[in-house]
């Protein structure tokens, strides 16, 4: 295959082959397939959307963005591993199709229509990938470039949202009569905010309304924005820039991707681009451009991917580790990091009173907060999108393991003072947040397995009983269930330490106990 073939044509379907059909079918329609590509609607017909998205991914990695990294690793067989240097730096060669997070996550964000923050030093292609996402969504390069909101210290709300028409301002008898010339970007399916940490705080608040609630407001006029994929860029991942990013805005970021460094062995690629004056975003193949309807279908298809029960349990177990903070209160419901934060008490002061727990089990010690509902929803959305992208109908363990760190990147705040980071070889986790989060998930899963929770989860039968409903359950059965709950709590109370993963289980048992207690009272009253 000539270099031209490799470049001009998209990766041939199937890009992620699963099974091979035994008998080849010959269709005379294939006569018109070949080196000359027909119009986009011709070639795109019949291509599944996940396949089209994979073709888009490979086109970007092969031709548009120089990102020769495979940090999202999948393996079908044990991968060859090599260790380098005094610290035994491990390099694995994945045995299955693996991906570059810097290209993949923005694409998954396009599918899920969420908010993606691209972080990294200047000149690493953050804006370039956001622009390509815009072109993939069917906008012309000119439209996309014009729609980019460039954060700068003088940016006003009017710059961001629009202006009242002067004529209506003069003639209006009431606010309702003022007409607003809304900025065009508000109505687009892809929204790009460049250097969002350079936007003044007041304008950030206006941006928050658009990002969070999908509408813009000015002079009592409302502009309802369509569902859109957001791309924000920042040079400083901590959000520090000209202006401090307001916490609510940061909280709305669903996924964070770091632009990795430029691999100098690819300087020749840069040289060619310089010599030829070449801009890949100008020539995105029509075959990988998605219509608005296709974007909606992709999102719906990704949401339909199934999350198996076993995997959901592991996610629950993992997420349960972080909110619990024993020294925060006297009553168990308030033993959370949020309680400490709301009280304005120094976290480290209280943390010192908590001793004796196994640092490898007590993962909650490594964070300053727990996972919000938004973070959990985003995690579910993105792991499903990952599985869908790979052509699966069910989320796999590796999908969760690979994607979770990018979703929780800004969501789980690291407690850099935790003793864990003082241990040998752990200091790097202070700066390598992706692998710190992946390590947390791995350790959580190890603990889950050690406790044999995939086979013997005390809550499983109680959940099943409760989900079956209370109709027809008699008092004797209720008493029996209450005893079972009390017995479980008693057994757990015999352990010496209370860990985060037990917190939500205990509270759920308390919840069941209360529901059954009320039900028993109602049964007694009914008699």
């Amino acid at each position, binding site marked *: 295959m000539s270099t031209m073939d490799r470049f*001009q044509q998209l990766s041939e379907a199937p890009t992620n082959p699963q099974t091979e059909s035994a008998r080849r079918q010959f269709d005379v329609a294939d006569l018109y397939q070949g080196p000359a590509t*027909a119009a986009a609607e011709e070639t795109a017909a019949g291509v599944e959307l996940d396949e089209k998205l994979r073709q888009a991914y490979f086109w970007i990695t092969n031709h548009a963005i120089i990102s020769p990294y495979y940090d999202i690793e999948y393996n079908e067989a044990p991968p060859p591993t090599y260790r380098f240097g005094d610290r035994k730096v491990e390099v694995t060669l994945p045995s299955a199709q693996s991906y570059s997070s810097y290209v993949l996550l923005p694409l998954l964000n396009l599918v899920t229509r969420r908010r993606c923050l691209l972080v990294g030093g200047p000149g690493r292609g953050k804006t370039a990938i956001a622009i390509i996402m815009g072109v993939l969504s069917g906008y012309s390069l000119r439209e996309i470039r014009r729609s980019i909101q460039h954060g700068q210290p003088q940016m006003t709300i009017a710059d961001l949202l629009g202006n009242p028409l002067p004529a209506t301002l003069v003639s209006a008898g009431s606010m309702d009569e003022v007409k607003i010339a809304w900025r065009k970007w508000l109505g687009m399916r892809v929204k790009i905010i460049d250097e969002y940490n350079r936007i003044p705080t007041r304008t950030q608040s206006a941006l928050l309304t658009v990002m969070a609630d999908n509408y813009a407001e000015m002079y009592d006029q409302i502009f309802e924005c369509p569902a859109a994929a957001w791309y924000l860029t920042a040079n400083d991942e901590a959000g520090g820039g000209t202006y401090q990013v307001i916490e609510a805005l940061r909280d709305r970021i669903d996924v964070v991707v770091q632009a990795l460094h430029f691999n100098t062995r690819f300087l020749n690629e840069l040289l060619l681009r310089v010599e030829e004056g070449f801009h890949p975003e100008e020539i995105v193949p029509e075959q990988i451009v998605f219509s608005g309807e296709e974007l909606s279908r992709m999102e719906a298809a990704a949401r339909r991917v199934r999350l198996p029960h076993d995997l959901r349990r592991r996610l629950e177990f993992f997420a349960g580790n972080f909110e619990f903070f024993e020294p925060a209160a006297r009553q168990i419901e308030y033993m959370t990091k949020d309680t400490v934060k709301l009280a304005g008490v120094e976290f480290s002061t209280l943390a010192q009173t908590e001793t004796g727990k196994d640092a490898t089990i007590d993962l909650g010690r490594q964070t300053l907060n727990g996972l919000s509902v938004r973070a959990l929803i985003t995690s579910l959305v993105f792991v499903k999108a990952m599985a869908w992208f790979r052509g699966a109908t069910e989320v796999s363990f590796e999908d969760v393991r690979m994607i979770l760190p990018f979703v929780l990147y800004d969501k789980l705040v690291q407690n850099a003072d935790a003793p864990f980071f003082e241990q040998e070889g752990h200091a790097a986790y202070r700066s390598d947040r992706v692998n710190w989060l992946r390590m947390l998930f791995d350790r959580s899963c190890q603990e889950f397995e050690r406790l044999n929770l995939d086979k013997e989860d005390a809550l499983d039968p109680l959940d099943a009983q409760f989900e079956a409903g209370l109709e027809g359950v008699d008092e004797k059965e209720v008493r029996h269930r209450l005893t079972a709950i009390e017995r479980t709590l008693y057994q757990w109370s015999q352990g010496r330490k209370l860990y985060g993963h037990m917190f939500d289980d205990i509270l759920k048992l308390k919840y069941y106990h209360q529901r059954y207690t009320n039900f028993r009272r109602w049964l007694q009253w009914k008699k």
Partner: protein
Amino acid sequence: MISSVLAEALARQRERCNARFAFTRRLNRRLDPDEFKRILRERVDPVVQAIQQAEAAAVDQAAAALYDLSLELLAADCLGKSARYPLVDQVWQRALPALADRLAAAPRRLAAALSNAACHLSLESGANGPLWLESLLQLAGQCPGLDSLLDLGKVLAWRCGLAHFRETALTVWQSLPEELRFAAVGVPHWQGQISTDELTARLHNPWPDLENPHAEPHLAVMARVGGFRGFGGKFLTLPRVMAADGRLYAYDQECCWSIHADCFGATLQRYGPDPPPGLPSPPAAVTLSRQGAVELAGCRGVFPLLREWMSMAVMGPTLAVCVDRSFWIYIVAVIGGGGA
């Protein structure tokens, strides 16, 4: 010099065209700008001028599509002085200007389709590309629309030797305008002699007698496929044949191919590294003696060519035979006899 029509159309999209060329050249250093200029001048320009005559409003769109497509084909060595398939050049030189009125409606779709078809026909050694082109130009005027023209192209490709498309091409053939059907399969002389229903029934037999619709069934060696790879054939070692899963297969020590043969031609299509599980020995319905005497479906014939046969396989009225010390596979068939 290119005409002012094309020059102005390209000037109106200068940035896009330049970017497209730069992009293509970037990854194909061999791309010769002078050769591309020649293609624009000698191939694209006449087509655009013809489109200008047919529908002036379509010139810009057509110029852009043909610019992109010719660049793509040049880069893939399908067009230009080092082109692998001269038939593609013939399509651009003869067919596209002649079909300018159809091209105006969907320039990219039609030009790409015909170029790709020319590539397919060029890849099959037994296919008759020039006949396909001639027949297409001859019959295009009878096609009411673009889809119908493309359907005709498919049927003609089958008729010109792409036997592996037989099943689906037959379906497409039935959707052609009735007055076109006899000509499309190369039997215009049958029109008036037999009805279209009868023609349909006869074409369902892979081996109708195209010379004489009323001839009695008889055996004939109709084709040979394969050949030694060193001489441009398919096989590295002496092949064997087998029948499995409703199809004939040929295989050597390296690869397995499915055999497709009918009255219009015979082709081998790569199946995979190993043959499918099937029947290595032929069923009793066929006999082939060491003297080359064949008895199949009640027909008899003697073919000295097949005397030293090594393996054979039969599927319906088609017999595939390998002979000793030959890389060729001979296709013997029961010719004529009406519908299957």
